[in-house]
């Protein structure tokens, strides 16, 4: 039964977009915490820890997100572990985000000049105080733009979760498209919703950069 694309479908897409946003927000939070650990592990003066971090980053960055999703969703049940689509998508996106955010923040930490550490040290600040009050605040400001850039990418990458049946914006579009048989209208609407989410993020980045005086 083919019907017309109407305002009800737009509402349906918007409701599905909530899951896209929920997935991005949750993956950013979980991946952010994990990414912070990765960033620190990447710079600690203990070689085996650094190697482990580098191996992790290369493995995650060097394999397709879709492959990771399939591995988790379809391969794990083969060994008796079943995961629902939401959990699989969340775990995958979090791990994926942690590898990229870890590297972005690691480079932010290392781009703060050695002289800033020394200036802190020469005033009697402890290593932790130098890190917390001198280096991290500067590294954060440097990292705002690349972090948001990655998150914009992550928003669009959540569409891969459609392929394991997680009903977010893209999966919802597929469903409505096959019901209304007007893919152009449906996917254009979906693209517009993605654009609004991503554009808001970029604007947020601008505001943050201004507030944090990134040029300083």
């Amino acid at each position, binding site marked *: 039964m083919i019907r017309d694309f109407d305002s009800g479908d737009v509402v349906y897409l918007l409701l599905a977009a909530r899951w896209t946003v929920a997935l991005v927000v949750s993956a950013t939070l979980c991946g952010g915490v994990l990414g912070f650990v990765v960033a620190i592990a990447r710079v600690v003066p203990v070689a085996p820890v650094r190697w482990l971090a580098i191996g992790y980053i290369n493995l995650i960055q060097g394999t397709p997100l879709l492959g990771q999703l399939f591995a988790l969703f379809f391969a794990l049940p083969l060994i008796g572990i079943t995961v629902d689509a939401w959990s699989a998508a969340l775990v995958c996106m979090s791990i994926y985000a942690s590898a990229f955010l870890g590297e972005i923040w690691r480079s932010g930490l290392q781009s703060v000049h050695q*002289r800033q550490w020394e200036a802190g*040290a*020469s*005033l*009697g*600040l402890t290593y932790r*105080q130098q890190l917390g009050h*001198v280096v991290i*605040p500067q590294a954060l400001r440097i990292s705002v733009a690349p972090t948001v850039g990655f998150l914009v990418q992550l928003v669009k990458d959540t569409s891969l979760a459609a392929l394991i049946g997680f009903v977010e914006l893209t999966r919802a579009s597929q469903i409505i498209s096959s019901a209304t048989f007007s893919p152009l209208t449906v996917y254009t609407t979906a693209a517009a919703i993605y654009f609004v989410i991503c554009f808001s993020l970029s604007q947020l980045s601008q505001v943050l950069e201004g507030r944090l005086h990134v040029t300083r």
Partner: protein
Amino acid sequence: MSLVEIDNIHKRFGPVEVLKGVSLKVEKGEIVAVIGRSGSGKSTLLRCINGLERVQDGRIIVDGIEVTAPNADLNLLRQRAGMVFQSYNLFPHLTVERNVMLALKLVRKLESSDARRIAHEMVGKVGLAEKFLAYPDELSGGQQQRVAIARSLAMQPALMLFDEITSALDPELVGEVLRVLESVAREGMTMMLVTHEMNFAKNVAHRVIFMHEGRIHEDGPAREILAEPRTAELRSFLSAVLH
């Protein structure tokens, strides 16, 4: 006991020996200018004194703290020995006020109101009271360096180390920084300065140390040493920097 006692220190960076057995005593209230060609080890000497570089051999004692001890309390040492760098190294994300207050709060554990009062006083002393709320990138190089001096002095150190603090400045900005140094000197602060400003060394320092190839080559009263160098190395160095 002297404020700074250095006994036969050796410092190597890989295969390069930068300090080849330096011994030196600095008394309280003394102002010592350290001069020499680049690579002679003068900056490294200063950095060893406040523990930014560890020596391989020898002993350094500053204000009763043994810097070279394996378990030396470097944070305590650095409260006693302030250091100002060639590149100012103000914290770019903090205002002038916060730059000066940071260590007062974190290290000396002062309340914000006390820290702010001291910061006001010190920044006023270097003549920048009107820049209190400015960020470092809104200041000229000379102004930034004056703030760096105020930030260090605010910790009330027993000794101040100045590492070529005018070398990165445009020539017209050097004077304002040297005037601040002179006023610090007048207050009786013990100072060690690595400098290329020979006139300043002659007029303000009590004593000049000429370093050459990792050793102290000449050491004596400033005017005497600069007017009548005893060695060919110092003569050739002075004729190179004065012309």
